[in-house]
């Protein structure tokens, strides 16, 4: 489900850091404000559709993608970025309906993660528009 056009290519850490730096203040504030209450969970229809799997929770997706990128200051592997791509593309359709009691702008953070991943030539596709992931792989 992940498109990595240059899997052997070295990551452009500088570009990643630049993008992170550009949005640092707002994003780090958003990440800091997350109290981990998990009240955002039910606002995601994919969480509801996937038997309340925590990996579909908006906060989980953000903390394990952009959160990791900020915490590690871009020092991540290509494999980790591919996992993040799964989180922000396969587990999220960016419908913008997620709700945070503290008003954290979750879609903006997912969108930024996608931007960072695209800059590294990693993109994902929505499985929902293509059928089940398993079907897609066997075809």
């Amino acid at each position, binding site marked *: 489900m992940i498109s990595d056009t240059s899997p052997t290519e070295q990551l452009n850490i500088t570009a990643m850091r630049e993008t992170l730096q550009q949005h640092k203040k*707002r994003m780090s504030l958003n990440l800091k404000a997350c*109290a981990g209450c*998990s009240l955002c969970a039910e606002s995601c229809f994919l969480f509801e559709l996937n038997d309340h799997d925590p990996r579909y929770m908006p906060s989980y997706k953000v903390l394990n993608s952009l959160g990791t990128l900020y915490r590690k200051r871009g020092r991540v592997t290509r494999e980790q970025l591919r996992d993040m791509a799964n989180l922000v593309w396969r587990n999220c359709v960016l419908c913008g309906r997620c709700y945070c*009691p503290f008003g954290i702008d979750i879609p903006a953070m997912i969108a930024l993660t996608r931007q960072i991943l695209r800059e590294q030539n990693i993109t994902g596709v929505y499985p929902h528009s293509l059928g089940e992931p398993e079907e897609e792989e066997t075809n």
Partner: protein
Amino acid sequence: MYDQIVMAAYTFARGPMLWAAALILCVGVIYRIRELYLLTVRKEKRSLPATVSATTPTLTPEERTLDRLARIQQSAFAVHPVMFFVSILFHACLFAAPLLALGHSLEIYRAWGITPPSLPEPLIDILTTIVLVCGLFFLIRRLVLPRVQAISGMADYVLLACVMTPFLTGFCAYHQWFDYTTVITLHLLAGNVLLITLPFTKIGHMVFFFFVRLCISSEFGPARGSRDWKA
């Protein structure tokens, strides 16, 4: 020797550390508000084409009732009623107990000669007990629920301990459990640590919550909001 160390810690926590903590808290909160303010801009007034009505469509009383019901049904109150009530109770008591504690009022009177309002001690004891029980609820929730577990790290537990310790030690001091001087010193130290960490950690949602909910325009916010995030 032990008594001397405790007394030195007590004097330090009641004097310079308290001043430093209060200063850090004030500067930290102002810094956070300024940071939030700079990250936002005054919302632009958007003009709609003449063919589009700029006002909300007029709803019949029945539609209005249905609209309200739908909003309630989607709110945290309906989705997580227990968490909703525990959170409100916890936060209300979290502020009321320390701000209206008789012991704290007496300390302020001794220092500055002014008497802030206070509640009877048994009532403060009840409020403190509520905070402790709610804190235990949050801890169990974090340990047991897979969805909360999935987004919990060591920092979450440390911060919960930071919040609960002043209340636990205050409760023990009021009931004269353990060595009073040690417990009250721990109470002072824990309270100061909480004040210092407040603006710089997740507990800072105290500032973020009000700013975002009241100033930023949002579909879910209670107020329309006059500001928007910078692009």
